[in-house]
């Protein structure tokens, strides 16, 4: 009776679940919050959850209410635009059953219009005009890819003109100053007769009012920097490889008619870096060599084209950035030769050179000149090091760095080389002077003192109109340049990091230091400097002449080293530190600097607010365990709102009091619907046959080869007077294979009890051992031989995979069981067990659902239960009609699968792919 009730109970649960999804209706929601748009006027925030079946919510912070929600596909990257009480939502991707774009009322969520763009992927942001919204998409049908430019009426959602389309893949789209679009497409064309496709890059101008092509210009090669338009001229740099030589070309095109204004081949060896910036409508381009050009693209002659040129003589790493008429470029320079001030630890260096007792240091010693050697030998204690001797040592070392002989692979066979040395060697087949120096220096660094490696960073300030340096000499940054250089007020802020060593010997620790320096933009004079331990992770926040810095570092608390953050407020004017605030856990949002507080969320699930003036904690709001803040914070009047990772939206007062929290998570994970249907289908098939079997319907089950051999194996063990060995696999009871194995073990143990043959069960898991003891005991009871049950024969060995194998191997060779059973979950040890068992001459029956281990069992055992047969075995052996019924149910489940596969494949052959969609769970 109990079973019947349970059976009904399960069915009821499933029905309830089924009803709940129907009720859930439009309850699409996701796991993480992504895009958000906030309307300050109404205090309504529009927020989207990330998932295939995503939802977008409209939440009024002021009224503390969820106003509306709409289903949208793929809200990550959804474009949310609020304008005149209307919210425009454009998904990045089309998903079946969902509208790709819609316009809704911000207060009610009422849909004005909605559109679906079948098979389209949005590739650009959405451009909004007075009455139109534009974006480009890529449409894929079979192997054909089209790029389309759409224009929709904001009022009606209708397309303003037939979308412009062209075959090819999307590269880039830019909008000209007149509002027209330049579409750059990699178009494929079939070449005559041949199978290969020819690719050409095309730049097409499309009129924003008509959607018609104004001009089209094929571009040769690929882009080094994507086109940019300014003052009616489109600039870009392309590259082509001709005879293994890279050829780069600078081009300027008239945006009006597509005519080429100028082309200029960039000299070999020069390489432009990054995108251009514009000053008075003309581009400033930097080169890898450190050259900076200011160019007028309308001129054809090179002499007229270059308005000014400046050589910075080092590798630009950041910029150029233009502020009014100031061009800022940060560059990096690597010195290959060691300079005297680079040596951090003279003592160590000296002792290494003096002793030179390793193959590597002795090689250095060998190459040092006589003079340096004698100087080094002459120094007995570090105190004797003076300026002169230091200079001599440095000169000596530099001599080696320039020495081509220094690097010879044989000398350093046993030395683990720094990665850079290996990279250098692998990358360059030919080593020129510079590279040899670089290599030698790296090598020396990896042998001697590591601190000698240093890149130097410089900041250059140029006059945008003349290209002249504004400062006497470029500003040299201390350490490694860290954050983008920027000007705030009348201070040029430069951040850098460096390592600092503290303590000696075992207590030696390396600290990451972060440094901010404020310079006078006029002359690069240092105004102030701030140094703190930590690592900058997020960009700085600035408000009212204050700089808010968030530094990552490790703090020790109760012997546990934990990552944490430190907040620092620095006055930009004089560099004074107004306050610092240390958190105990990691901040995982950016800093939201509000009127009078800095707000942020931590990984532990706290929303925290710190006063702007005093750095005192205003509140710490606990949103739940590890419930991280997962959206930006919006504030309106005295309220603030944010979403958290587990799908809640919180509205707090600025004092940190909870006003309202909404659970935006749905009651049913709709994206798991296919799993649900699958479970329902399979369970009903199984339940149906179990039910009928119980009713007494006879069902046929075929013979399973491995199982009929069980009797034979146990019989033989009895004849030989040897025990039976039974292994339940490596997994715990959390694996169904183990449970199936335990069930089979019950039947085998009953046989051994009847035959009075001992059964040995060494276990890999304690719980399994405990269960196995019960199972075997029960079997002995059933066989009427409880007296012969030996508990110690079912014992634990170890959880460790190979420790267990070693133990079982030992049992096999010593006890020499005549029959070995390996049923359950196995990993790599399967073969060790099976081969050892084979060598002892036992009959072996194995069974597992691990596809990777089956080959070994098949090769080394007499009988193997493959995959599903393992699970079927207990049913087969039990002869219980319900169990037999479940086997029939399993067959029906397989029939359903076969049907799905065959129908799905046929449909797919005709490009109908909804079956695939039905099966996808993400």
């Amino acid at each position: 009776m109990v079973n019947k009730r349970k059976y009904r109970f399960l069915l009821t649960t499933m029905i309830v679940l089924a009803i709940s999804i129907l009720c859930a209706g439009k309850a699409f929601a996701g796991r993480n919050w992504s895009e958000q748009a906030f309307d300050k006027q109404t205090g309504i925030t529009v927020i989207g959850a990330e998932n295939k079946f995503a939802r977008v919510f409209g939440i009024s912070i002021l009224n503390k209410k969820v106003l509306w929600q709409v289903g949208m596909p793929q809200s990550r990257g959804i474009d949310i635009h609020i304008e005149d009480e209307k919210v425009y939502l454009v998904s990045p991707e089309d998903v079946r059953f969902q509208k790709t774009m819609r316009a809704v009322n911000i207060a009610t969520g009422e849909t004005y219009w909605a559109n679906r763009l079948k098979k389209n992927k949005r590739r650009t942001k959405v451009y909004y005009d007075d009455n139109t919204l534009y974006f480009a998409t890529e449409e894929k049908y079979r192997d054909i890819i089209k790029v389309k430019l759409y224009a929709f009426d904001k009022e009606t959602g209708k397309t303003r003109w037939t979308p412009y389309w062209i075959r090819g893949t999307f590269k880039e789209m830019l909008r000209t100053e007149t509002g027209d679009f330049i579409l750059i497409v990699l178009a494929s064309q079939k070449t005559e007769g041949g199978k290969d496709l020819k690719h050409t890059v095309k730049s097409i101008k499309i009129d924003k009012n008509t959607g018609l092509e104004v001009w089209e210009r094929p571009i040769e090669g690929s882009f080094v920097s994507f086109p940019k338009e300014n003052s009616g001229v489109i600039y870009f740099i392309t590259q082509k490889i001709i005879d293994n030589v890279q050829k780069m070309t600078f081009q300027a095109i008239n945006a009006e008619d597509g005519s080429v204004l100028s082309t200029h081949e960039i000299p070999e060896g020069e390489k432009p870096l990054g995108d251009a910036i514009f000053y008075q409508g003309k581009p400033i381009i930097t080169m890898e060599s450190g050259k900076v050009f200011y160019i007028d693209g309308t001129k054809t002659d090179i002499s007229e084209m270059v308005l000014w040129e400046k050589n910075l003589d080092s590798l630009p790493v950041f910029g150029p950035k233009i502020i009014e008429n100031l061009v800022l470029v940060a560059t990096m320079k690597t010195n290959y030769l060691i300079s005297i001030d680079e040596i951090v630890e003279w003592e160590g260096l000296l002792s290494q050179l003096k002793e030179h007792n390793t193959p590597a240091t002795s090689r250095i010693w060998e190459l040092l000149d006589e003079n340096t050697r004698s100087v080094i030998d002459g120094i007995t204690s570090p105190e004797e090091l003076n300026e002169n001797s230091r200079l001599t040592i440095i000169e000596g070392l530099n001599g080696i760095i320039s020495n081509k002989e220094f690097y010879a692979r044989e000398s350093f066979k046993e030395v683990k080389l720094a990665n850079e040395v290996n990279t250098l060697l692998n990358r360059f087949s030919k080593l020129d002077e510079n590279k040899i120096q670089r290599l030698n220096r790296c090598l020396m660094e990896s042998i001697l003192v590591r601190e000698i490696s240093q890149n130097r960073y410089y900041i250059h300030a140029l006059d945008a109109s003349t290209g002249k340096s504004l400062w006497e000499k470029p500003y040299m940054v201390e350490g490694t340049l860290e954050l983008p250089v920027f000007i705030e007020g009348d201070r040029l802020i430069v951040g850098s990091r460096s390592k600092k060593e503290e303590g000696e010997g075992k207590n030696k620790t390396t600290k990451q230091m972060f440094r901010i320096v404020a310079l006078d933009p006029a002359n690069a004079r240092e105004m102030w400097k701030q140094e703190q331990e930590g690592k900058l992770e997020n960009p700085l926040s600035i408000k009212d002449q204050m700089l808010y810095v968030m530094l990552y570092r490790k703090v020790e608390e109760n012997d546990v080293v934990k990552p944490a953050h430190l907040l620092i407020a620095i006055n930009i004017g004089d560099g004074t530190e107004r306050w610092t605030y240390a958190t105990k856990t990691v901040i995982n949002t950016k800093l939201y600097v509000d009127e009078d507080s800095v707000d942020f969320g931590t990984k532990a699930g706290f929303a925290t607010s710190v006063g702007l003036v005093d750095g005192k904690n205003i509140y710490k709001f606990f949103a739940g365990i590890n419930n991280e803040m997962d959206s930006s914070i919006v504030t309106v009047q005295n309220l603030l709102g944010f979403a958290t990772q587990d799908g809640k939206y919180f509205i707090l007062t600025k004092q940190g009091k909870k006003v309202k929290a909404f659970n935006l998570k749905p009651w049913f994970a709709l994206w798991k619907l296919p799993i649900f249907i699958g479970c329902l289908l399979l369970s009903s098939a199984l339940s149906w046959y179990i039910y009928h079997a119980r009713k007494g319907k006879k069902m046929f089950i075929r013979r399973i080869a491995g199982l009929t051999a069980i009797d034979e194996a146990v019989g033989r063990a009895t004849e030989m007077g040897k025990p039976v060995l039974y292994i339940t696999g490596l997994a715990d009871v959390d694996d169904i294979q183990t449970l199936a194995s335990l069930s089979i073990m019950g039947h085998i143990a009953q046989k051994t009890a009847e035959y009075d043959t001992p059964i040995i069960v060494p276990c890999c898991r304690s719980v399994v051992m405990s269960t196995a003891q019960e199972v075997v005991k029960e079997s002995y009871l059933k066989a009427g031989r409880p007296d012969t049950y030996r508990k110690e024969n079912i014992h634990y060995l170890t959880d460790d995979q190979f420790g267990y194998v070693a133990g079982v191997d030992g049992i096999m060779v010593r006890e020499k069981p005549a029959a070995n059973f390996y049923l359950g979950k196995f990993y790599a040890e399967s073969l060790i067990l099976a081969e050892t068992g084979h060598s002892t001459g036992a009959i072996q029956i194995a069974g597992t659902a691990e596809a990777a281990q089956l080959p070994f069992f098949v090769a080394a055992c007499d009988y193997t239960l493959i995959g599903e047969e393992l699970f079927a075995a207990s049913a087969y052996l039990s002869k219980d009609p319900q169990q037999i019924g479940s086997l029939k149910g399993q067959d029906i489940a397989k029939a359903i699968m076969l049907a799905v596969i065959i129908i799905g494949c046929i449909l797919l052959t005709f490009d109908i792919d909804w079956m695939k969609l039905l099966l996808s769970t993400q």
Partner: protein
Amino acid sequence: MRREIPMAITTITGVIMIVVFFVPMWGHWSDIFLKWFTVIAGFALVLGAGSLLLVNLNKISRKASGWGYNVILILGLFVMAGLGIFQGIKPGTPYDFIFRYIFTPLSATMFSLLAFYIASAAFRAFKAKSPEAALLLITAFVVMIGRVPIGEVMWNWLPWAKALPLTTIIEDWVMGCFNTAGQRAIMLGASIGIISTSLKILLGIERSYLGGGE
């Protein structure tokens, strides 16, 4: 009742696991239950260790042949567990020493025995007796020669090597087609078996894990 209550617990827990899987609001309970599982399994180690001690102490007290080895086993168990529990498992501790110089090499060597066993198993499989065994042998052989450099060289001597490169045969046909198909069939079959067994356990039809009646 001694049988009904455990069965009810199984069913209820199982249904809870299924429900929380589909209900995002309660999703974290699945993780918590799995953590409970590890905790309970942790307690069970007491039973395991007890069993191990019992078996070995028994042999020692009986002075069964080779009882000295059982002393080593018990020593190893106590030293390792004791050091780990009372002294910590950080690098540099004696526990770490045993782990690095005793446990790891033993483990790695045991694992490496597979190289010999796979050879002997392969040798045995070479005596193909049935068409099935022959198929296993041929595919294994083809894939094996494809995995060693010399195999590629040998293949290229064959007249049809140009039209049918060895890598195409192995990657596209053997691995990509037949191996995938076979593995998939096993996985699909096995998954039905898992679901069916799970369902039988939840419905209380399969209850052998509970052992005896009262």
